[in-house]
């Protein structure tokens, strides 16, 4: 069980997270039935606010377990305990830990929050790590993701995991996301930090937290839809996301955050001043047989002729075989290439170049797509600088 930091109860410090934890424990200790009262928990509400019901529940518990000889049921003094108050490590706290339902013997709450959760087991942590080992990441980043899972479990008792599609995304997957029409991303194929196995989206699937009435949520998803149904980043949910980011970017893990609002995201490099489009152009050049450069959100390419660069469109256009190639570009490229070749013996003039056809244009679009495929296949060799 997480320790409380300060006192809870009548005239206590009543920090919210301490209060919620004490309330949760009292909600998970069943009080024996008595005349006029059925068996039930000492407290039925976990809200982090200490009022008369919480104070009374503490007193009831103390009167039955702290200020009494349990064997004889005679009242006894307990000078180390304070009526109506639970203090860190005092006899009331110790007795609460002794009496709480074993299934709830390790409950946690994030500091400042009121959402009490059941700590994940070692098996649950290991299952999340096993899942990571089946996903696609670079080896260096995989180690960081596993470190993050381990640290979250070690520090907070939470078994985080990788979200669906939260590992390396192929260029096709990135294209699907870009064209989903929901404005999920502005990054085209090869332009996302997810395309190179060095970024992960992590989440809280399986987090077992206690509702205000003490029931346990058993079907939480990675994005905390149960805790935050409208996904407004409600304060209690935000606290979990902030904790994930704090742990993920700590020296013990060594990852970096991505865009500020992208809370599930961690990546392997600091992307300050890194242009993903410029890096894609470099990666395309290194992976294929053409020279590429970035021109704002569009790309230029030598089309394999080795001369001037031609604007060929966005990554999405190129991926979808809609590169903005024209017959004139191919004609110009061919002519420039031919001009660099030495004349054959006795040749007075270069032979006229063959006319460029629509099929040539289509073939070039297919070839540009193939260059992207090569870059996609070469993802492990992408660099951020």
């Amino acid at each position: 069980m997480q320790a409380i930091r300060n006192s809870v109860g009548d005239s206590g410090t009543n920090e919210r997270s301490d209060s919620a934890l004490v309330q949760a424990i009292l909600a998970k200790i069943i009080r024996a039935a008595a005349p006029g009262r059925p068996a039930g928990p000492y407290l039925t509400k976990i809200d982090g606010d200490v009022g008369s019901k919480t104070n009374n529940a503490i007193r009831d518990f103390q009167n039955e377990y702290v200020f009494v000889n349990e064997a004889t049921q005679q009242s006894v003094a307990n000078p180390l305990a304070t009526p109506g108050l639970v203090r860190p490590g005092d006899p009331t706290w110790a007795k609460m830990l002794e009496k709480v339902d074993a299934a709830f013997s390790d409950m946690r709450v994030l500091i400042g929050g009121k959402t009490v959760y059941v700590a994940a087991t070692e098996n649950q942590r290991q299952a999340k790590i096993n899942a990571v080992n089946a996903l696609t990441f670079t080896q260096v980043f995989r180690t960081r993701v596993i470190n993050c899972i381990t640290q979250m479990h070690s520090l907070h008792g939470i078994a985080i995991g990788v979200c669906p599609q939260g590992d390396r995304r192929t260029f096709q997957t990135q294209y699907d996301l870009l064209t989903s029409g929901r404005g999920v991303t502005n990054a085209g194929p090869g332009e996302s930090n997810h395309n190179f196995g060095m970024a992960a989206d992590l989440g809280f699937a399986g987090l077992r937290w206690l509702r205000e009435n003490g029931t346990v949520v058993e079907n939480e998803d990675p994005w905390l839809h149960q805790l935050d149904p409208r996904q407004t980043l409600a304060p209690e949910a935000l606290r979990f996301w902030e904790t994930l980011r704090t742990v993920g970017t700590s020296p013990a893990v060594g990852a970096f955050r991505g865009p500020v609002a992208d809370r599930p995201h961690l990546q392997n490099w600091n992307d300050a001043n890194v242009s993903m489009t410029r890096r894609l152009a470099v990666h395309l050049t290194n992976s294929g047989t053409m020279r590429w450069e970035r021109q704002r959100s569009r790309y230029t390419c030598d089309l394999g002729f080795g001369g001037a660069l031609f604007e060929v469109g966005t990554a999405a256009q190129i991926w979808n075989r809609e590169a903005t190639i024209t017959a004139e570009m191919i004609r110009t490229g061919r002519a420039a290439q031919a001009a660099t070749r030495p004349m054959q013996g006795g040749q007075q003039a270069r032979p006229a170049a063959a006319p460029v056809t629509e099929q040539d244009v289509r073939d070039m679009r297919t070839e540009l797509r193939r260059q992207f495929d090569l870059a996609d296949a070469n993802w492990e060799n992408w660099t951020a600088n």
Partner: protein
Amino acid sequence: MMLRFSAVFAVTAISFCIVASARAQVPAKITEIQARAFESRTGTFSENLIGAGARELGNMPTGKNASVSTFIIVKVAFGKSSPVPTGAKVRLVATESGLTPFSSSKKDQRKKVILDSSSLLGPADTDGTTYVGFWLKRTDCRTVVLNATLTGIAGASTKVETLPFTCYE
């Protein structure tokens, strides 16, 4: 002898009436909502997206099981060997809501009814159940709340389920 036969007949008749009455008293109700993602790359439907063990609905428009539409199946039960209630319909209201807080764009985040449709019940199985289908043409990145109501009969039955779709960069 005649008296004994009459008594047996009467008991049998009363029993039948009691059973029939009990059957008639089974309230027609919606007992389940299923949701099956239609997968664009395979032309097949997914497992049920609702219930324990259902897949997590993140970035559904991507990957080998990419899906941007969902078929909803509403199960109605009205008792074994009972007639299909005349005039009964299932009304399904599907409402998109919720933000996509991890997306680049915060546009188009208002609550929106994406389907409000009623459908008559079809033939029922001998166990007194029938199924009604509805097509949600666009399901991808926002939470969809399904509210199914049985109308046209006394004692309307309603069932609500949520499909927590979300997308993230």
